[in-house]
């Protein structure tokens, strides 16, 4: 069965776009046909994270305004052939697409794809309302900082108002050393405060930065702890029962391994 997922957060810079890219690659690696839609019009970045920035011909606005059929605007991923990107415009702004256009586009896409994943802009204005309008499932990304958790709570309230009941939480950028010292909120703390079904905790991992530099989502990196966490999340979204990985500070051997890039 096909599913439309929106990745949202309220606060900017918590890893929405990174999460969207990794979920996309993760589903595609399982043989699913996936399309990622960047709705952060004016601040487009999903293309960069996927390494597809040089292949864009048309964008979301060209499609919603009827200049080209959506198939013409899709960019196919180089390595994952069942993964496609529908990039957005870098020159227009977030009001260029409305909820109605988004709904009819997603209704078309859902006929051809197993997963439609929408990367939502930060904030709770029209761009957010448009991005969530067609979604069956909302994935809320937050980080263990009070401002991000508060914004996540606000977003959960807004999703409820829009009658989006299937909401999942991802806690990103957890630092195991700080958790151990009692200096960082844990997934359980955030889970308890927000009372939303949590589908993953992602440790803070330098490999996310280096893989973003290369335009290859970290989920493809077999040694990355964040990559493994993303793989688990993809499994859970596919309905598998995967236990949460333990968030523990890296041991001595793991550090040595990383230094030698083993």
């Amino acid at each position: 069965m096909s599913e439309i997922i929106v990745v949202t957060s309220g606060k900017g810079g918590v890893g929405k776009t990174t999460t969207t890219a990794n979920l996309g690659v993760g589903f595609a690696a399982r043989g699913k046909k996936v399309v990622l839609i960047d709705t952060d019009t004016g601040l487009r970045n999903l293309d960069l994270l996927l390494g597809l920035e040089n292949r864009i011909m048309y964008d979301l606005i060209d499609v919603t305004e009827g200049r080209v059929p959506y198939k013409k605007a899709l960019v196919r991923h180089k390595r994952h052939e069942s993964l496609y990107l529908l990039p957005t415009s870098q020159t227009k702004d977030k009001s260029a697409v409305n909820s109605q256009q988004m709904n009819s586009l997603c209704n078309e896409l859902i006929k051809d794809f197993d997963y439609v994943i929408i990367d939502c802009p930060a904030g709770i204005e029209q761009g957010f309302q448009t991005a969530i309008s067609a979604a069956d499932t909302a994935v809320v990304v937050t980080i263990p900082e009070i401002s991000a958790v508060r914004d996540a709570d606000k977003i959960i309230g807004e999703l409820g108002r829009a009658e989006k009941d299937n909401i999942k939480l991802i806690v990103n950028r957890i630092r195991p050393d700080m958790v151990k010292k009692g200096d960082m909120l844990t997934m359980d703390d955030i889970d308890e405060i927000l009372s939303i079904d949590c589908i993953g905790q992602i440790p803070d991992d330098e490999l996310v930065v280096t893989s973003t530099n290369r335009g290859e989502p970290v989920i493809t990196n077999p040694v990355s702890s964040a990559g493994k966490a993303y793989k688990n999340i993809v499994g859970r979204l596919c309905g598998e029962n995967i236990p949460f990985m333990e968030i523990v500070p890296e041991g001595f051997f793991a550090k040595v391994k990383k230094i030698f890039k083993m």
Partner: protein
Amino acid sequence: MLDAIMKIFGKESKSSKDIARDRLRLVLVHDRANISPQLMEVLKDDMIKVISNYMEINERDMEVSFTNDNSSVALVANIPIERMKHSAEFKR
């Protein structure tokens, strides 16, 4: 004084995580208390239903609202009573 020394050695009485959690809990009560007028009406109607089992109240002059101060949020209801019912009239 002891607190200051403990701070130097990085041993505060409460971990920063616990402070963050407590602050969040409180701020979210404030944030979420901002509920819609429609919901407020539904709440008011439900309260009237329950209270009417025990006493007759003046529904027109009844006021229900949230009040905030720095450390807590309260639901305040001002309900004028017209007549207390006899215990024989109580609906159970």
